[in-house]
């Protein structure tokens, strides 16, 4: 029981990170209709930028500044790299651009923040809240750090939900994912909305990256490499275009991973098979995921 609970808490902690990155993937998928393979590396770059700012400013300021810069960066990526290819009507080309961006951003980070530097001065993200202490539940230890991490990421999801469901900007974003042509005809500036969608996704990823990095003593350019696979699994399981689905599925993936590595001997040491198997079975059995859109149309 104690082991089970400890693993459950671990699963929830990682699940919150998967949920946030999955949410970023879903935001891009809804606006642009494509998987951004560079989403994780964009978040990784954001994390380094946040870290750099944190060298000179309080960590909370650094996180917020990092999110704001990521918003601008995400919007610029859409405008300068994605849209020109989209306008050529080449969706495969756009996907390849995101893969190229994945590699380029990773290399860029290594140039600016050389991994060799980590030996003398490790990249260590300050924690934005008091981290000491645990809560004991039936003999298992729930860290206050986990409670805060989950609370903040859930708060972020809630803020996004309110933005999407309750504001005019959110309505415009949802209109865009429903029908681009009609969005234009009702007066929505589609280009601006695409940039907003990418910007929001980058900002969400930035926060997830910073919190993930502060979880351990140091981080490096591989911060997001595995996370992306888990986030893809969560996004697919939740239904690629459902923000709510992405969040719920993020926690499911996190818990499934923690349980599998504990109780299934076969995946010991290779937890990455958990999300990959999940992606496989979701696509095979229920491609629209748990909450995905099944278009009902009568004419």
């Amino acid at each position, binding site marked *: 029981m104690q082991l089970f609970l400890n693993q459950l808490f671990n699963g929830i902690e990682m699940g919150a990170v998967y949920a946030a990155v999955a949410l970023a993937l879903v935001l891009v998928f809804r606006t642009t209709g494509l998987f951004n393979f560079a989403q994780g590396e964009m978040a990784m770059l954001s994390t380094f930028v946040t870290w750099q700012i944190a060298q000179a400013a309080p960590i909370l300021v650094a996180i917020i500044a990092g999110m704001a810069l990521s918003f601008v960066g995400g919007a610029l990526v859409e405008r300068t790299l994605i849209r020109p290819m989209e306008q050529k009507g080449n969706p495969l080309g756009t996907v390849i651009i995101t893969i190229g961006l994945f590699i380029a951003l990773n290399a860029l980070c290594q140039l600016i923040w050389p991994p060799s530097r980590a030996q003398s001065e490790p990249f260590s993200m300050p924690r934005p809240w008091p981290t000491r202490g645990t809560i004991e539940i039936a003999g298992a230890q729930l860290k206050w750090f986990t409670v805060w991490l989950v609370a903040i990421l859930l708060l972020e999801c809630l803020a996004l939900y309110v933005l999407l469901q309750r504001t*005019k900007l959110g*309505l*415009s974003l*949802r*209109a865009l994912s*429903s*029908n681009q*042509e*009609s*969005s*234009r*005809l*009702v*007066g*929505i*500036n*589609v280009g601006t909305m695409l940039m907003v969608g990418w910007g929001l996704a980058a900002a969400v990823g930035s926060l997830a990256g910073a919190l993930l990095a502060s979880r351990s003593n140091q981080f490096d350019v591989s911060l997001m490499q595995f996370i992306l696979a888990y986030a893809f699994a969560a996004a697919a399981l939740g239904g690629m275009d459902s923000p709510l689905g992405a969040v719920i599925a993020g926690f499911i993936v996190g818990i499934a991973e923690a349980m599998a590595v504990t109780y299934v001997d076969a995946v010991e040491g290779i937890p990455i098979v958990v999300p990959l198997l999940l992606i496989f079975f979701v696509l095979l059995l229920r491609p629209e995921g748990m909450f995905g*859109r099944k*278009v*009902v*149309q*009568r*004419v």
Partner: protein
Amino acid sequence: MSLLSLRGVTGGYGAGQVLHGIDIDVDEGEVAVILGANGAGKTTTLRAISGSLKQVDGEISFDGRNLRRVAPHQVARLGISHVPQGRGTFTDLTVDENLRLGAVTRSDPGVAGDLARFYEMFPRLAERRDQAAGSMSGGEQQMLAIARALMARPRLLLLDEPSLGLAPLITRDVFERLGELNRSEGLTMLIVEQNATLALGIAHRGYLLETGSIVAGGPASELAADEGVRKAYLGF
């Protein structure tokens, strides 16, 4: 001066030219109809006006303002609501959200009042306000598309084949509503339609479009009396 006027408008897609120099006028408060067979260029004409057609030349002016090379979302903000062919429903959003999107560019306090007014005008939409718009019947979606367009308080309504895919009785209902809107509120409309009888019934002015050229135009009653039009489009 007309509210909308097209002079020598040409345009098309890729290497194919669809419009070969079109002249059209629509006066304020009037219903104008463009009749024509499939492929004549009716939809392309409306797309040229609303800025959706990329390759377009000639003069398009709305209220004295040149519309050529103006982006669709800016044309919409100038007061032209375009209901595209197939109605352009936001299928996975609710009826209420669809209507609110019609007014997405407005920031005046009258939006809530207009919403209430259109729910009263179209009770079916009120019954289904929280339902996904795509789950409604074609006729209901057409009503929704019209109400959505009106939510923008347009000065000109462009309608692309409102009868498409609808049963005859429902088509008649749609045109009755449109005629009513024009009479009671003076709403200016440019309608593209294959159902000539119904369309000319509510129109003041008509044009006949054949393979990208206007071959006849004038008061709707004259067009309806024209021998050639009657034979080709009215069936008697």
